């Protein structure tokens, strides 16, 4: 994006959202065109959202962060340059570049980094922060020739690396990836000496746009995809299994098919981070099973579920996989080497990301892996990520066991050895609870999503409560699967958000959750901020089943009513107070 394009975007009338996204840009230099580009990139990424952008005080980066009023902003974008660590590392200061000054520059940079880190940590308790570490070349102040990295220069780079690693722990502070920036903005084309000295703005325009574009992506923080459906022949491996046989397919250096091995390795990485992987292949089932038994297979069959291997249409396979996973097509990526299959699936599932595997094109496969990382990337890997696939398999086993047992649901639940842990502590680092609220659709009281800032405001409000629910039974753990947010008003509770993962349906966890709310707060009545959404049918069915009438906006449930109408509950319950 060039500056004229950015200004053109900003010329268009802003939307009149009730709740604008309030961004604060803090940098030590004059924000000038960086501010313009950031606004324009945010407008482009968030066309339905009004964005307001404020900037900090010129020359005082740490002070701008320390003075931040969290209640007046939703996200903080921080751009650090070398001169913020010590003015002598910029050009506008003439504080001295003598060799004897170098140890002191490192020392004062260390102190400045410490102050910045403290300010960032404090601010991150209230709002999410996106940080760009120094992007400009260091000035030629070191005694070594420029092709040689000297001791003090390396110490400064180590300082910045350690600083970035330290603040990136946890999920509140998102650090911009310098390698990604290197790809879009070469180092030699970043510094504008003239505008730095004349206007206090050190970036060339393309660099300002590149930094702003990545910051906007960090601010948007898109929801990761949940699952990937892959083809097998000439995709997961090279060769046609039905023709070449299990020993004829390959993914190795010797046969120049190594990129398929890298693809398998990448899928293994996604699976280990909680992404669901399934196979949709027109193939012979027995042969596929045999292929997955090969000892050199990089992607374990344990990481793949389900396998849809037959000769029916791919879109039918995809439909069944979505049903098993219980996720929508918008949360899934489909990959197949056949453009025809890709088109067939895309025609059925418009919202799905459908990609043709670029067989035999090394660079394109490499680029595909990077694109997939962007689709599935997440800041924190939770316990639930580790057990997601296991719990989906467990749910399938549970369904099959229930069907096979043939007894009543009560009999089945009684024998399932279920235990539920209810926790009432408000943990700021509870990303799973926040994630559940923002991605659950089916069992969702009102479809309301929370921004990072709104989540932190909720946690800091002493009048609110948060209940999280962990579940496990003899079929395996489901992890943290439900969240209730609300307020206590004497003997009455008001529930503002209630979500439960679809993996936890049919276990009466929702009934047990209400029971615990009544008991914990000694409440006589619970009022719900219910809103019907196109996708919260399961929640509507639950209330209709419990109360005997379809829910409406005045939804409430008294303790007496609940006691009378709740079915039998067989869970072992543990309550943890915050």
């Amino acid at each position, binding site marked *: 994006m*060039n*500056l*004229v394009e950015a*200004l*053109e975007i900003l*010329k268009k009338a802003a939307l009149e959202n009730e709740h604008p996204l309030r961004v604060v840009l803090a940098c030590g230099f004059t924000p*000038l*065109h960086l501010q*313009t580009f950031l606004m324009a990139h945010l407008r482009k990424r968030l066309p339905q959202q009004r964005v307001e952008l404020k900037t900090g005080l010129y020359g005082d980066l740490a002070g701008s962060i320390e003075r931040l009023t969290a209640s007046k902003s939703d996200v903080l974008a921080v751009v650090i340059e070398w001169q913020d660590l010590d003015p002598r590392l910029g050009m506008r200061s003439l504080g001295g570049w003598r060799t004897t000054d170098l140890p002191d520059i490192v020392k004062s940079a260390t102190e400045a980094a410490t102050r910045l880190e403290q300010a960032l940590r404090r601010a991150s308790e209230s709002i999410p922060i996106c940080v760009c570490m120094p992007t400009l070349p260091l000035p030629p102040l070191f005694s070594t020739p420029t092709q040689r990295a000297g001791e003090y220069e390396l110490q400064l780079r180590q300082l910045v690396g350690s600083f970035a690693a330290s603040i990136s722990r946890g999920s509140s502070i998102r650090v911009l990836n310098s390698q990604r920036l290197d790809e879009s903005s070469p180092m030699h084309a970043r510094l504008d000496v*003239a*505008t730095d000295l*004349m*206007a206090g*703005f050190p970036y060339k*325009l393309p660099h300002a746009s590149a930094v702003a574009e990545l910051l906007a992506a960090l601010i948007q923080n898109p929801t990761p995809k949940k699952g990937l459906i892959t083809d097998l022949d000439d995709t997961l491996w090279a060769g046609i299994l039905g023709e070449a046989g299990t020993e004829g397919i390959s993914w190795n250096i010797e046969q120049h098919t190594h990129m398929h091995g890298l693809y398998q390795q990448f899928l293994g990485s996604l699976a280990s981070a909680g992404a669901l992987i399934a196979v949709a292949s027109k193939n012979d089932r027995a042969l596929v099973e045999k292929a997955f038994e090969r000892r050199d297979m990089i992607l374990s069959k344990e990481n793949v579920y389900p396998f849809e291997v037959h000769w029916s249409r791919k879109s039918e396979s995809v439909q069944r996989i979505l049903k098993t996973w219980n996720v929508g097509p918008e949360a899934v990526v489909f990959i197949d080497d056949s453009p025809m299959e890709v088109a067939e699936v895309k025609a059925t599932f418009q919202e799905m990301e459908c990609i043709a595997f670029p067989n035999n094109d090394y660079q394109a496969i490499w680029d595909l892996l990077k694109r997939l990382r962007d689709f599935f990337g997440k800041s924190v890997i939770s316990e639930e990520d580790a057990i997601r696939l296991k719990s989906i398999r467990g749910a399938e086993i549970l369904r099959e066991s229930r069907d096979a047992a043939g007894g009543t649901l009560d009999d089945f639940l009684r024998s399932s050895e279920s235990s539920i842990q209810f926790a009432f502590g408000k943990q700021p680092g509870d990303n799973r609870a926040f994630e559940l609220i923002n991605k659950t659709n089916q069992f969702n009281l009102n479809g309301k999503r929370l921004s990072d800032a709104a989540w932190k405001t909720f946690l800091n409000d002493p009048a609110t409560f948060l209940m999280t629910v962990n579940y496990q039974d003899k079929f395996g753990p489901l992890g943290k699967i439900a969240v209730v947010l609300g307020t206590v008003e004497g003997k009455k509770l008001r529930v503002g958000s209630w979500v439960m993962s679809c993996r936890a349906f049919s276990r009466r966890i929702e009934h047990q959750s209400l029971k615990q709310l009544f008991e914990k707060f000694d409440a006589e009545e619970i009022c719900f901020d219910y809103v019907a959404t196109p996708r919260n049918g399961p929640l509507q069915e639950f209330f209709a089943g419990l109360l005997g009438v379809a829910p409406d906006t005045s939804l409430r449930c008294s303790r007496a009513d609940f006691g009378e109408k709740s079915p039998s509950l067989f869970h072992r319950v543990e309550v943890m107070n915050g």
Partner: protein
Amino acid sequence: MDEMENRLVRCFSSVFPDLSAEQIRAASVESVPAWDSLAAVTLVAVLQEEFGLQISLMDLPDLVSFVAVEKYVREHNSAS
């Protein structure tokens, strides 16, 4: 209006979106309240991008009206 004048009007319009093409051609630092130092630096950046010129910020004091900017760009554009 020739092609260069068109491009100049477009540049001015991106920095001063509230001005009409006619107002832009008559614009000067005195007549346009929004023409402050920030707008001046932005205008220079836009002109550099549009015409591939290197405009020294030292020349800013001379670029005080549309007419002056047009003259500057015509001279430096033909020189480059």
